[in-house]
């Protein structure tokens, strides 16, 4: 016996499995009858009409790295806020969750402001 919520999850998994099989089968159907004629020029990567030079995986500016770092933390914070939002009206005693979440968010807004301030100083990164 499975819970009703679990049955829906299994439907979803089944759908994903079918949705995975269809493009894979299509890919095989398309690939097999083709007469591929690769040539050295065709297999080169695109670089505005020139022969590609240097490493394909180039260096990229690290300038936006702080956003990536704080994203990991504030993703978790957003998940906590979802839990608060769901029980906004059902919490016992009513309204008791507001002060804790206000303090929680208030404390976390300070490092957010600091990190945005840091991230805007481009010469640091």
């Amino acid at each position, binding site marked *: 016996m499975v819970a009703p919520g679990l049955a829906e999850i299994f439907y979803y998994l089944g759908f994903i499995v079918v949705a995975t099989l269809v493009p894979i089968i299509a890919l095989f159907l398309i690939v097999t009858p083709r007469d591929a004629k690769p040539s050295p020029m065709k297999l080169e990567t*695109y670089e505005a009409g020139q022969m590609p030079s240097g490493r394909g995986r180039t260096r990229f500016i690290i300038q936006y790295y702080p956003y990536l770092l704080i994203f990991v933390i504030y993703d978790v914070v957003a998940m906590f806020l979802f839990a608060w*939002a769901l029980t906004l009206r059902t919490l016992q005693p009513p309204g008791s969750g507001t002060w804790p979440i206000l303090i929680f968010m208030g404390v976390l807004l300070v490092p957010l402001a600091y990190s945005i301030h840091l991230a805007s100083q481009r010469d640091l990164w």
Partner: protein
Amino acid sequence: MADPISDPIGFSLEIMTSPLFFKVAVFPGLTSIGIIIALFIWLDRKITARVQLRVGPLYASPLGGVLQSFADLIKFAFKELFIPRNADKFFFVAAPVLALIGGAGLVGLIPFTPEWQISNLELGLPAFLAFVTLSPMLILLAGWSANSKYPFIGGLRSLFQQTAYEIPLWLSAIGVVMMAGTMNLIGIVQAQSKPWVIFLGLSIPGWYIIPQALGALLFFITATAEMERIPFDLPEAEPEIIMGWQAEYPGFLFMSAAGASFVRLYAFSALFSVLYLGGWMGPAPVPALLWTAIKIIIVSSLIILLRATFPRVRIDQLLRAGWTYLLGLAFLNIVITYLLVVGPRI
């Protein structure tokens, strides 16, 4: 239920005619997704053409060239499939196909009507938003695998762009959860069924676009950024980095990559109509499915209109705006929603 071993034909017939199979295979499942990709490509071309005083596809059918995009999709399937030298073969093939599958997975969560839904998860809204976060990873892998400069830049841009829109997207959806008190998508639509006010015999439906106007706007903007459509199409950016992460893709794989973007357009338009426009409900006695379809077409046409009218933002502008204005407005929206739901007390 027929026995699968002694009566294989009867068993397959029973499977084929079961409602769940129809839902997975035809509507809202795979076949309809394929057709809707083609229809959205056509809609995209037509609207963009109208804005630019062109006519767009014209000849392929009496209905203004609807069949043109179907023909293009079939043509893509017969192109030669080659993989660039030095590319990482596994991820090069797997990433766009997985992106397409992920898009289909998003559609599987949407309730078109209470009956026409593949899987009614109890936590439909956060599940949708969580599955959405997987696509930047696939784009990054696709860009990395090609071992070429433009795709790699596009993949990294997609990653940074995610940090800008992801948290405002979650926070703007929180407003809806606060009002509805549930995360189930069907429950959210049912919470909008009560009419807002009755004025001269006309009932204004209690859709969340009215109390959640700011949240809806934020959700619209961040969803456009998620779909990587102009003005937020930095990972593709045709004039700058030559289609970005899709630059090296041939034939079927390019079709998967481009199709995945249109599937996400479809899924997000449907989610927007569920969250803010009352889903399958409407003021006139029209079949429920038609209401959903009308709302999806309106929302997606708006998103396509943005593509035809706006210039692209720069990535530093997007990151800065995402972490200051969008995030700040999302917090403001949560405060407004709190005042609406609970009142001015703590």
